[in-house]
């Protein structure tokens, strides 16, 4: 009869989980956002693997260059087809760490920050698969998707899916280091700040407004 016995987790997970005991603030100025991006061997969350994770934090609505994380992972799986996108070679000169080590650093870094990513569902799923492979639960953080936030602005309702490239062009965000995890995370963070200021015209925007589904925005 082990159904009541809780699984025990490594210390780094417990540390991570402990951050969620305090309530998340609703004031955007007081929230630590963690904008991130992953480079992967492909787009299938079950089969493909994460090659690198780039993260940058936003506090007081400022991008904190000092509060960032950049990790490269050792993976057995290698897909020559995606190398031309992210430029990450199987060996290469970068220092690489294994998945468990990467998760340790990642969780230790993000704490209870609100996760922001472009098409966040994919990147979050990739991380969750990684956690699963290492016998750990899913991420506990709140997640914001910049694609979703753009829909909320109602600037362009012609379609529901906009690529990071399309949005950067639309908002004149310079696209340096596109398709490196850190570079994309930085571009996404600029896009995120821009979207916040568009949505925040009355200065009353709260975190819940951002988390709410798109269709409700018209009723606010």
């Amino acid at each position, binding site marked *: 009869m082990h159904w009541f016995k809780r699984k025990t987790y490594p210390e780094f997970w417990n540390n991570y989980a402990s951050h969620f005991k305090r309530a998340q603030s609703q004031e955007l100025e007081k929230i630590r956002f963690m904008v991130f991006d992953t480079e992967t061997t492909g787009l299938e969350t079950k089969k493909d693997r994460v090659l690198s994770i780039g993260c940058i934090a936003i506090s007081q609505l400022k*991008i904190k*260059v000092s509060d960032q994380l950049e990790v490269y992972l050792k993976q057995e799986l290698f897909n020559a087809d995606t190398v031309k996108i992210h430029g990450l070679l199987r060996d290469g000169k970068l220092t690489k760490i294994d998945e468990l080590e990467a998760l340790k650093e990642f969780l230790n870094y993000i704490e209870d920050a609100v996760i922001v990513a472009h098409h966040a569902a994919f990147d979050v799923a990739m991380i969750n698969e990684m956690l699963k492979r290492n016998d750990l639960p899913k991420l506990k953080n709140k997640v914001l998707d910049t694609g979703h936030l753009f829909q909320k602005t109602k600037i362009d309702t012609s379609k529901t899916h906009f690529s990071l490239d399309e949005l950067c062009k639309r908002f004149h965000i310079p696209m340096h280091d596109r398709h*490196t995890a850190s570079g994309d995370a930085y571009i996404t963070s600029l896009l995120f700040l821009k979207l916040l200021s568009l949505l925040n015209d009355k200065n009353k925007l709260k975190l819940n407004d951002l988390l709410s589904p798109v269709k409700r925005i018209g009723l606010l």
Partner: protein
Amino acid sequence: MNTIAERIFDYLKAFPPFNLLTRSQLFAVSERVDVIYLEKDKYLFEIDKPVEDHFYVVRDGAVGLFRENNSLVDECDEGDIFGLRALLRTGLYKLNAKAIEESIVYSISSELLEKYITTNKDASQFLMASFASNTRVKQADDNDFIESLNRSSEYTYLQTADYSKNPITCSIHTSVKEAAQIMTHKHVGSIIIVNDNKPIGIITDKDLRTKIATGKFTIDDKVSAIMSSPVITYPETITVAETQIAMLKNKITHLCITKDGTDNSELTGILSEHDIIVLRENNASSLIKEIKRSYWPEQLKDIRERTETLLTKYLEQDIPIDFISKLVSAINDAITQRIIEFALTEMDSKPPTKFTWLAIGSQGRQEQLLMTDQDNALVFEDVEPSKYEDTKSYFLKLTDHINHSLEIVGFELCPAQMMANNPKWCNSITEWSQQFKSWIATPDQDNLMLCTIFFDYEHVYGDTSLVNQLSEQIFESIASHDIFLTYLGRNALQNPPPLSFFRQFLVEDDGEHKDQFDIKSRAMMPLVDAARLLILSHNIKSTNNTLERYEKLAELEPQNKDTYIFCLESYKNLLRFRTQRGLANDDSGRFIDLESLNKSDRLRLKRSFKAVKSIQELIKTRFKLSQLL
């Protein structure tokens, strides 16, 4: 790894003061940047809010700095720094910073940068200039800060001259023979005659050649018979620059160094021209010597061209511009003097009366560094009415020779005929006094323009008493026409300075953008005009040089010292800048291509606009011009 910090590093390294930091210093700064996104019209900081421990660099877009009444102080574009008040650590913001376009701004830790920058001379000077360019006149609380940065960055070129500390001396009772034996024994070319260890005379190798070897005196005569006396003395703190000027001015090759700088104190050293040559490979004085030995204008042309090379070298060595302009003026004067001597020998007879040759305009102010056109005039002593015609035609013939020889040397003829061979500007002292009097009595636009040219006259050749007479009469005329200075004041305010630079434009006070910059009329002339006006209002004669005028004004009006020093520094910068531009482009350096300006150039120029603004405000108040304008 921090890819983002690397990108920020790559961006910042293109701009001062960041380009002056070491790689690891700049990387440490870049790693701690905060990136701020600003919508159009959003404020980054506001007046009377406490300063933060960050200052800002525009990454994309543009940020405007505004005063309380919403008047624009500056527009900052990509790479511009603002919010430097943070470096003072305390106090409140004095300006509003508002995005005038959608902008991305880097916020940089002032603490970290200060740590690196106070140990970096170039970087601290740059920041000082940036900060001061947005502070109209230095304020008391800023002084400490500027002072502390200044201390770490003293000009090395103003080093004190390295003089011989063991001068060879003898007493007044020594014979020439004994003195020569001492000099030979000690391998020196000069000996100082002292009395109670105070210098009273000097003998050099040249004296032995010209006075002994020629048989004029014998070797048994006492040194007092052949020594040059009194000696020129300076204190121990004399700089290389001062030494050169003193030697040029007095046409000597040795200076005595004494305890208090007068010949009434203890001799501590001797400074020879040779010491200076060794200190700094310098040949301005040898150029002057060559000028004196020349026989025709063509030779002088070559010397004047070599002066240009020397000028380039001095500018590269960062030698103070006031010193450079004095040297170049000394050379120009020597050339003119030599040419006048040539011209006099060409004449059939000696001059019928005393005369004096005046340099006017920029040459009269000793600010003519580049070869621009000549401006000059001639004054001759009054003669009997019956002799007037002959006298005038004699001098017109003489001046014609001079003007054309100057043209051969490379000083182009003045297109406006402001030259001594123009019958209008070759006059007797009485005619000149009348001329000035009529300009002063009827200060219309044309006359004021002539005043601005002819008031800056400098004696170059001939009788100095005529110049003094002229100056006295001019001041008398001014004193009896109160309103004149008011008109001259209004004239000095005709050209308000631009506000700032923004991308490839010049921003005017009303926010208008222009794409051309005339450094002479927009920045230099207003400072020149202001200095002339103020110095005339103090009845100061014969101070023509703009820098010297500001120095004098700072001394006369301690309450306005900051403003005058500010103008002085700005004028130095402008003079240097224009000369560099002129030499580089082989033109007058007057029109500036805005795209060619880098950030530090813009800052330096911008700072000079503030100087013009502050001096014009001072003039407006002093001469009660607000009603008149």
